[in-house]
Structures are given as structure tokens and as C-alpha cells.
């Protein structure tokens, strides 16, 4: 008893068909292995300390978090005297910027006219507050940075940190 009751001839034909199908499947470029670039530890730390120092120079005690491509924390720094909530706020900003591939500032801007976005903020780890910036290589988002604790200067400080590694993000 066979689970595949086909005659020998038909089996041969389907084998040929399968081979043909396999060739067609193998041909497209999206069946190749995907090549990706990721943040290095040294780069993530440079961004984080650069951002923290920029805000410190302005007199603001903040916390900063860098997440990787997968949205996981790779650097988290709680600045001296920064508020208790700032670490978690920074982490969510970094995650939000990473997953939506835009600054949280841009994310907030589109909120009023976008009912979907108003629902998205009910997802875990999403926060619609200015201060999160995606880390990009060309169009590829490889991580995110979030900072919290300054009065409206969060994104400016993050960008100061990102500027320190910009030459390597090409």
C-alpha cells in the first residue's frame, strides 16, 4: 500500500515537474541568504555616551538606551541624578524608533490623523514621546537610540551621539 498512489510514469513526470519548480524557486534573488550589518558594541557605546554627555553639557541629567536590530537592549546608561522613569522611557523610545523605522518625533506627528497609530501605542514597549531615533545604514534600520530626561532636548542629544559614528554608518 502506498501513500502516494501514482504510476511510475506519472511519478517520473512529477519528479521532472518538481525539479522544474525547484529551479524556478532557486532562481529569484530573494531566495539567497540575506546579508546584514549589525551595530557593534563599541559603536553602540560611543553613541550612548556621546548622547549622555551632550545633555550633561547642557545641564540635563538623562538616561540613554541603544537597542539592536532585534529591539534588544545593547547599551543602557542611567545618568547621575536622572529620574527613575528615564531608563524605561529611553528604552521604549529606542524600541519604537527601531520598529517603526522613524524618529519618535515623526511618529508623534502622524498620530492625530492616523487611527491605526493611536492603536499601535497599546502594543508593548511602544511610546509616542519625542526622543527616539532609528540607527540607519542607508535605508536599512539596524537599531534605535532613545534618551529621556531633558526638557525637550532629548532628540538633539541623541543626534549628537549619532554624529560621533556617522562616518561608520555608510
Amino acid at each position: 500500500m502506498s501513500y502516494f498512489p501514482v504510476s511510475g510514469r506519472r511519478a517520473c513526470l512529477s519528479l521532472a515537474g518538481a525539479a522544474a519548480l525547484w529551479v524556478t524557486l532557486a532562481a529569484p534573488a530573494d531566495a539567497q541568504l540575506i546579508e546584514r550589518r549589525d551595530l557593534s558594541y563599541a559603536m553602540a557605546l560611543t553613541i550612548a555616551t556621546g548622547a549622555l554627555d551632550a545633555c550633561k553639557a547642557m545641564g540635563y541629567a538623562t538616561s540613554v538606551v541603544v537597542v539592536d536590530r532585534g529591539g534588544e537592549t545593547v547599551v543602557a546608561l542611567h545618568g547621575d541624578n536622572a529620574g527613575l522613569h528615564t531608563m524605561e522611557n529611553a528604552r521604549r523610545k529606542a524600541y519604537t524608533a527601531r520598529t517603526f523605522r522613524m524618529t519618535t518625533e515623526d511618529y508623534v506627528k502622524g498620530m492625530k490623523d492616523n487611527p491605526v497609530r493611536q492603536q499601535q501605542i497599546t502594543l508593548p514597549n511602544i511610546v509616542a514621546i519625542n526622543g527616539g531615533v532609528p540607527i540607519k545604514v542607508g535605508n536599512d534600520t539596524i537599531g534605535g537610540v532613545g534618551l529621556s530626561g531633558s526638557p525637550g532636548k532629548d532628540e538633539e542629544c541623541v543626534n549628537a551621539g549619532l554624529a560621533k559614528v556617522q562616518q561608520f554608518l555608510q
Partner: protein
Amino acid sequence: MIRFFAGSISALCVFAGLNAQAADPLPTETFKLLPATLAVEAAQAAIAACKGQGYNISVTIVDRTGSLKLILVGDGAGVLGRELSRRKAYTSAMQRVTTGDLAKRIATPGAFNPTLYDTQLVTAQGGVPIKIGNETIGGIGVSGAPGGDKDEACANAGLAKISDRLS
């Protein structure tokens, strides 16, 4: 009777007021904190020490209350270590001993076992308290090396880097 109570209350108020103005104020506690710059320096040194032996690790530093000061994930460090290093740091800060010593302590028959009551505590080696003299001001946790003794050695290498400023 009512008058008596009213009298006592106003007497208490006067006493409290006098006390607040007394030369010897209510006692307050003064303590030291690890600044972010020293935390970064120690964590970088720990990662470098393990990297030098071919191990990719994560480092977490917590303050005296057990809350996060720093997380650093080295290149190629595993996923488990991110959380485990935090719990090692937390355990060392809260219990004021290395996680290795905590494991030994609770192995003694009849000894109090805090891990039964706080599920964040771990006994895996690699957590070290950050001390100024006898005072614990935080904890550092390392995870990712093949063996808790190697984790602990890298944590100590990190602390050694900043030891001259821990006073």
C-alpha cells in the same frame, strides 16, 4: 478630659517644633553613589578582560537599591547573559556578597536562604558587590564566559580598573 487631651496635643506640637529647631537635627543618612562614567569604565574593562580570553560577555551594574545603572552587551554575547548578568549584579548588591559566596552560604545546613523569598536572586557565580571599605554601594554582574569562575574573574578585572577611585 477633653481639655486634658487638647493640652497634651498642643504640648506635643510645641515639643515637635522645638525638636526641629534643635541644634542636633533629625538624623539623615549620607552615602556615596557610583557615577555613570566609572560604571562605564568598569564595564568596558570587564568586557575587554573576557574578550582577551576569547569570551563574549554582558555586564550589568546596579546601584545600592538594586536598580539599573548600566547594561553593556559585548559583541557576540548570548541572549541569556543579558538577563542573568542583571540578576547577578542585583543579588550582589542586595546580599552584599559575591553570588559564589551566597551559594556557599545557603548550602550550609540550616542557613537562611533568601532565594526562597526573592525570585530575582541567583546563586550562579559572576556577581560581585561594589564596595567602599565595608559599605556596599552597588553590584556588578558578568555573564557569558564558559564558567562562573571566569565570569567572576572578569567582573573583578572591571572593578580593579576603578578601585583607586572607590574611596
